[in-house]
């Protein structure tokens, strides 16, 4: 294999997997899979996971992990739902999710760098529980529904472009995800801090002796993850017209899975934004494909587990081959 082709496959091979999956499903169930409505659904249902995965990706690049994103999502969702019902002006309500995410992310970063807790697993396991507990506390464990239309907009709206029959169309949430992904790509690839994040993932000592403020950069990394989690709470609240205290339980594991399937290394320093989006789509399309073929949800979980293992194993094989040459 030519080195160019190898490099292309390393960066974009995962996108080919997404296309292959779509072709298979299109061949098996064209009458359902290929409808505009089904495709719209896939995008809408996976938009909040996509945001969580983008944030998780930045953390995983530094060889860290953020277990708190599901709880941040739940806390954001319930808080903004309560605020919306209480009549807080909607522009302020829109800010609540991201603000909560930034705050919890900052706490995670401080725990890691100032308290020097031994691994981000510990700190974010703590905030996972604290944020979830707060969510139940402020909601009394009950869902809050009935949000202002402006608050719902980004999670619920779609554009039919004049020819798609409702409820099909380009979801507003897709546009938000696209903006976030492009913004994150630019930040990671084109700014000094983005490059420093990759350097920290590759060799923290190299980053330190190059004059990079590693602690400050790590705090920013966890703030970014929290921010995206808060934003995903806003999307989910809009889509479901509610704040649901159980929302996002366990979803941090889906986000981690999507990032890993998308080719990022758990040991840090490797991966790209496009791969992360592909990882989200692979999980989303797999679920959708199994659904429309009436495969039980229990089997879905088994399959996703296997996909994670196979995806990482392929990565291991590829790296082994690269070392040999």
């Amino acid at each position, binding site marked *: 294999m030519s080195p160019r082709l190898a490099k292309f496959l390393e960066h974009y091979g995962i996108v080919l997997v997404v296309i292959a999956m779509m072709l298979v499903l299109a061949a098996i169930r064209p009458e359902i899979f290929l409808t505009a409505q089904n495709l719209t659904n896939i995008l809408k249902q996976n938009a909040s996971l996509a945001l969580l995965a983008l944030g998780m990706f930045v953390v995983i690049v530094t060889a860290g992990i953020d277990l708190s994103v599901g709880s941040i999502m739940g806390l954001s969702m319930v808080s903004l739902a309560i605020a919306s019902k209480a009549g807080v002006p909607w522009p302020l309500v829109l800010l609540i999710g991201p603000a909560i995410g930034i705050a919890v992310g900052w706490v995670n970063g401080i725990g890691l760098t100032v308290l020097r807790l031994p691994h981000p697993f510990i700190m974010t396991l703590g905030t996972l529980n604290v944020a979830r507990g707060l969510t139940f506390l402020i909601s009394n464990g009950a869902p809050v529904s009935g949000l202002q239309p402006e608050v719902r907009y980004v999670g619920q709206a779609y554009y039919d472009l004049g020819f798609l029959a409702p409820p099909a169309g380009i979801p507003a949430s897709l546009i938000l995800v696209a903006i976030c992904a492009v913004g994150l790509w630019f930040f990671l690839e*084109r*700014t*000094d*801090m983005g*490059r*420093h994040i*990759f*350097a920290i*993932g*590759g*060799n923290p*000592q*190299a*980053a330190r*002796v*190059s*004059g*990079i403020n590693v602690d400050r950069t790590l705090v920013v990394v966890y703030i970014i993850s929290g921010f995206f989690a808060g934003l995903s709470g806003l999307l989910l609240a809009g889509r479901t017209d509610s704040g649901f205290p159980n929302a996002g339980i366990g979803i941090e594991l889906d986000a981690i899975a999507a990032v890993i399937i998308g080719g990022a290394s758990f040991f*840090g*320093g*490797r991966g790209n934004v496009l791969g992360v989006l592909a990882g989200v789509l692979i999980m989303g399309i797999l679920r959708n494909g199994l659904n429309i073929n009436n495969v039980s949800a229990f089997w879905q979980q088994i399959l996703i587990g296997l996909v994670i293992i196979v995806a990482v194993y392929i990565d291991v094989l590829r790296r082994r081959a690269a070392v040999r040459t």
Partner: protein
Amino acid sequence: MAPLLEAKGIAKYFGAITALHDVNFHVDHGEVLGVVGDNGAGKSTLMKILSGLFVPSEGELVFDGLPVKFSSPKDARKLGIEMVYQDFALAGNMPIYENIYLGREPGRKFGPLTVVDHSKSRQMAADHLDRLHIHVKSVDQNTEDLSGGQRQAVAIARATAFQARLVIMDEPTAALAIKEVGKVLDLIKGLREHGVAVIIISHRMDDIFYCCDRVMALYQGTNFAESPLAETNRNEVIGWIMGHKGNTDSLAHDRLS
């Protein structure tokens, strides 16, 4: 002319432990100084003080005639003092050019962020490597794909990317294959021709005698002896490391008497 860097009465205590006491030495402009000493003699501690990683407990550093105090490696770097680490301290997942300019990326500043000019950075790296006569396939290669000698060369290129005046090298050949040692030592000699002073810490007499102008030995936390290279020999220097002066061939450590 005043020496480039002068250390006067440097001491460093870690609690009750005295790592260094009353260290006095200097490095001249464009000079290659070899620093030898046994494990625990204080070489690393002294270099960490010179590069700003440690603050000395006593004594002062004079750089280019002016007393200086470093509170971080950044301060030392501003004056042109750079450190090359034994393990190279490169980010293996990143290309050569990004490693060279890591933390000092060329580009446009927007508030707290710099938008990196990757093509300028590539070009600067290629030019800089050319100047040092370092040959790589492409500046886009990740450093993890390089040999030990090439990695060391990239680490040296990073240290000299911005008008370095003194480069401190910790065991520059310890992690290299034998066939690459010569290239790296020639590179160090080349730095002298660019007017850069170099301090080499090494256990290998071959390295010291190949590229240094002067050699200094540390023994039990202080400077024990020093000499221009032309006026000493291996056995004498080995004797210094072990705390003897006036070693002759008959006392050499590797001879049976």
